[in-house]
């Protein structure tokens, strides 16, 4: 009896602490979202209450949709993220396969060279990157961002994928070789399907920093045509700083895609991190 009583208090305490921190983590997001649906007066008079029939208003969203080309920004972000992701996964898997499958002179050295980029942020090369993109006339194009993000994502992708590819049994690949399959077919037909779960993990890790980045869009592609959603929201909020309805609506709109992705991928993401560490 006494024991179960004690364990009950203990578990209540644990839930209290975790619950309290959950509130801290979610409160700002919820606060922004509920206030974006209120009139200006209600935002200031009672920021903590939910919108009701009297205080409900979509004026902020109307301003956002009228003023900024948010749909265009969103498409830009989507294009940049998906195309970079495609190249990171394709080139990353190819390089990881070469490094994990074959013994050749310079294998370790190539691996180390490619791993440098995991720790050294690409941002530090910005001065020269801007010069190079200007020389190639790629400033204010989505290609400049795609190139940078592909280079940025490759090191970690190669590192994680080659760890996974080392675990694939040699028997399978050798059986393929005996059947006369070329190395390319072995890679594409036998190995890639087996590392799909790892690719999904890499995809999530690669995607988030690209979608959220502010630095490179600000420097390489600040033009109206090429603004990403992150930069677009930043500029919009900077201009409408005193229009609280618009700012809160813009913030809420920026949260939604991340939230949707997270709900879809959270299991994958957390399973990925957990399995990586279990090894």
């Amino acid at each position, binding site marked *: 009896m006494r024991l179960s009583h004690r364990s009950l208090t203990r*578990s209540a305490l*644990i*839930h209290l602490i*975790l*619950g309290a*921190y*959950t509130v*801290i*983590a*979610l409160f*700002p*997001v919820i*606060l*922004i979202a509920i206030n974006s649906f209120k009139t200006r007066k209600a935002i*200031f008079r009672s920021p*903590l209450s939910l919108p009701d029939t009297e205080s409900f208003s979509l004026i902020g969203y109307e301003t956002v949709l009228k003023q900024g080309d948010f749909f265009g920004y969103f498409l830009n972000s989507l294009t940049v993220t998906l195309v970079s992701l495609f190249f990171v996964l*394709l*080139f990353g898997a*190819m390089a990881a396969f*070469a490094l994990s499958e074959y013994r050749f002179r310079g294998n370790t050295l190539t691996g180390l060279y490619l791993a440098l*980029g995991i*720790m*050294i*942020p*690409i941002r*530090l090369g*910005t*001065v*020269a*990157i801007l010069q*190079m993109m200007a020389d190639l006339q790629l400033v204010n194009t989505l290609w400049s961002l795609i*190139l*940078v993000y*592909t*280079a940025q994502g*490759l090191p970690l992708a*190669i590192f994680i994928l080659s760890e996974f590819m080392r675990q694939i049994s040699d028997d399978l690949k050798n059986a393929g070789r005996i059947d006369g399959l070329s*190395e390319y077919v072995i*890679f594409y037909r036998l190995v890639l399907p087996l590392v799909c779960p790892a690719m999904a993990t890499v995809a999530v890790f690669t995607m988030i920093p690209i*979608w*959220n*980045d*502010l*630095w490179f869009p600000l420097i390489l592609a600040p033009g109206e045509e090429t603004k990403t959603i*992150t930069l677009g*929201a930043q500029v919009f*909020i900077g201009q409408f700083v005193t229009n*609280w309805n618009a*700012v*809160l609506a813009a*913030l809420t709109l*920026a*949260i939604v895609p*991340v*939230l949707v*992705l997270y709900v879809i991928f959270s299991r994958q993401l*957390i399973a990925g991190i*957990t399995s990586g*560490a*279990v090894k």
Partner: protein
Amino acid sequence: MDRQESGRKPFRWHILVFLLPATSVYTLVMIYPLAETLRLSLFREVDNSTVFVGLANFADLFFDSRWSDQFWNALWNNIYFFIVNMLVQNPIGIALAALLSIPRLRGRSFYRTAIFLPTLLSFVIVGFGWKLILSPLWGVAPTLLDFVGLKFLFAPWLGKEAYALTTVALVSVWQFIGLPMILIYAALLSIPEELMEAAECDGVTGAAQFWKIKLPLILPTIGIISILTFVGNFNAFDLIYTMQGALAGPNFSTDLLGTLLYRTFFGHQLQLGDPNMGATVATVMFLIILSGVALYLFVIQRRITRYQM
């Protein structure tokens, strides 16, 4: 044929094909610009021609008061920013992970998902969201403090030189706490059941179990978290830029090396942008990060005892 003639294996082209796309993009867009940036820091623009000046840019950055005041200010701010992150983010992250890994905990995945969410939000959302919440205009922060009877503590923190940097650092903690939490959580899960059962048989339970058995086992992960925090903090820019602007106000009190790099490179207000000084700042950041990573790889990582599990 080749093999018989020369006694060597034929050149395996497929290896080159597999490696070439990744290495060329990486070399061209990452390594070359990094090297070029390091090189640019040794040159200067004089009368429309580029002149090699050795380490003169660095001398200016460190000692010429036009640059050095801002540089040392940003460097010390950055060190302080890092210390706050290490001391607040990582212990809380570890504590949350320890609680989450308690067996048979209900609602585990809900807590985990919720606490990790801020890590995925962009700096724009985090920065502006907190700016609004902390704004004395809106009054959410004082209202909330009033609930717990601490209203007297409220001040427009972001606008005060004395508090702004700490406030921004704590917002950064709020955003990134999910990372240490999830990594430590994964490390704790990987500790084998039998080990804990053996500990229980020996009468080591509860808190003692955490301190004496689990903590030593997760030290390598704590090392990884520390170096990730270090690299992230000495490269930080976005949060300051969205919350305090490129001038990192009030009066540069929240200036970090990242914002200094941005201002030096692009210029601001009356000062013109200077690519060579920008490259110099980037080189200093590179050296700081490189020495941190080297310290971790060659000293700390080797000292940490790893237990075979």
